[in-house]
């Protein structure tokens, strides 16, 4: 098939399309829905597990920063599937992540050695991974409407956005000291979610799947 024939074919098969909303708008919609979901999930967990403790002092700032990370990371994910979108979109989540980590550092509590046991927080990992699955799924479905030329980046930003929000839910449900074990369990769960999403990204987001003749 020569190029002119291809042009005729593409013109013949042209159908109207609904242009995507801007990445900013899509991120705002997703972030709002995600925060509502986290609130609802936390309420359900509280009903099951016996109450929510609103973090005060040390862990309040990281939770607020986490919402910022989720918002900017989702914006970066939506921007990554729009060809030619300014790369400044990827600067803001990096800044937010740095601020988020800084709030944890300032709120760090060293636990006396005698009390350092291998505190197991599998329930937090489950909350972050299982509870975050619907959010990841929704985000991936929204991203598939775009052009995922760099699917792994889109997936990484998505996983970060969801994981930091689910971390908030896990911490609200069962507050724990901000120590290295928090970093191990919650940070480990976040990294695991990111790695799994990045690995699955080409299969989930390959835009070739949507090639239409």
């Amino acid at each position: 098939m020569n190029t002119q024939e291809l042009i005729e074919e593409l013109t013949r098969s042209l159908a109207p399309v609904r242009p995507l909303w801007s990445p900013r708008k899509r991120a705002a919609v997703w972030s709002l829905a995600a925060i509502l979901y986290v609130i609802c999930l936390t309420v359900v967990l509280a009903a099951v597990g016996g109450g929510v403790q609103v973090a005060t002092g040390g862990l309040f700032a990281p939770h607020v920063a986490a919402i910022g990370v989720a918002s900017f990371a989702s914006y970066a994910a939506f921007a990554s599937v729009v060809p030619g979108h300014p790369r400044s979109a990827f600067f803001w989540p990096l800044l937010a992540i740095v601020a988020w980590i800084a709030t944890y550092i300032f709120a760090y509590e060293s636990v006396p050695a005698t009390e350092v046991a291998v505190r197991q927080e599998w329930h937090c990992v489950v909350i972050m991974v299982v509870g975050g699955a619907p959010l990841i799924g929704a985000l991936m479905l929204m991203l598939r409407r775009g052009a995922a030329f760099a699917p792994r980046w889109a997936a990484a930003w998505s996983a970060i956005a969801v994981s930091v929000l689910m971390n908030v839910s896990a911490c609200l449900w069962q507050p724990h000291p901000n120590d290295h074990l928090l970093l191990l369990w919650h940070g480990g769960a976040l990294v695991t979610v990111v790695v799994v999403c990045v690995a699955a990204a080409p299969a989930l987001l390959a835009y070739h799947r949507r090639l239409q003749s």
Partner: protein
Amino acid sequence: MESGNVTNERLGSLMQAAQGGDARAYRELLELVAPRVRRVVLRVRGFASPEDREDLVQEVLLSLHSVRATYDPSRPFMPWLTAIVRNRLADGARRYARTGGREVLVDDWEVTFSDLAANYEAEELGDAQALREAVRNLPQGQRRAIELLKLEGLSLEEGARVLGSNVGALKVATHRAMAALRKALKSQRS
């Protein structure tokens, strides 16, 4: 990719019209875009054969078609197109790196085997226009299999991913398509 302001605005408005389903605007857009893309491909892939370069141009047009919903009319058109071109060139380079070093391209085999019956396939599929017509008349699944594997040069795994199918089903579809093409061309000749 060069772009005057007027050209950028004109292309952007043509793209916006095309998003609304305006076929005439879309044809004009593609016909304006194709030579620009061809020049870029020639600049970046001048070492490639004319056929390979034209394949890349067509891949860019196919990609533009499939992701046209992502174009934001409030933003300039050329950066959007440039990103698509860059991505397709990178994909093309990756594909060449995967297969180019292991393939030897053979243009023409005048004689494949001494027994004429063994040249059945080459003889059957010799008429390009008739072949194109026969491909167009194939059932959609078989046509897509031929387009992806034979025209776009995807591997079986890539083709299966595009179709949301598996390698086995794609092989079957391709085999059936080839059989249907042979039958169609044979009946045309007779």
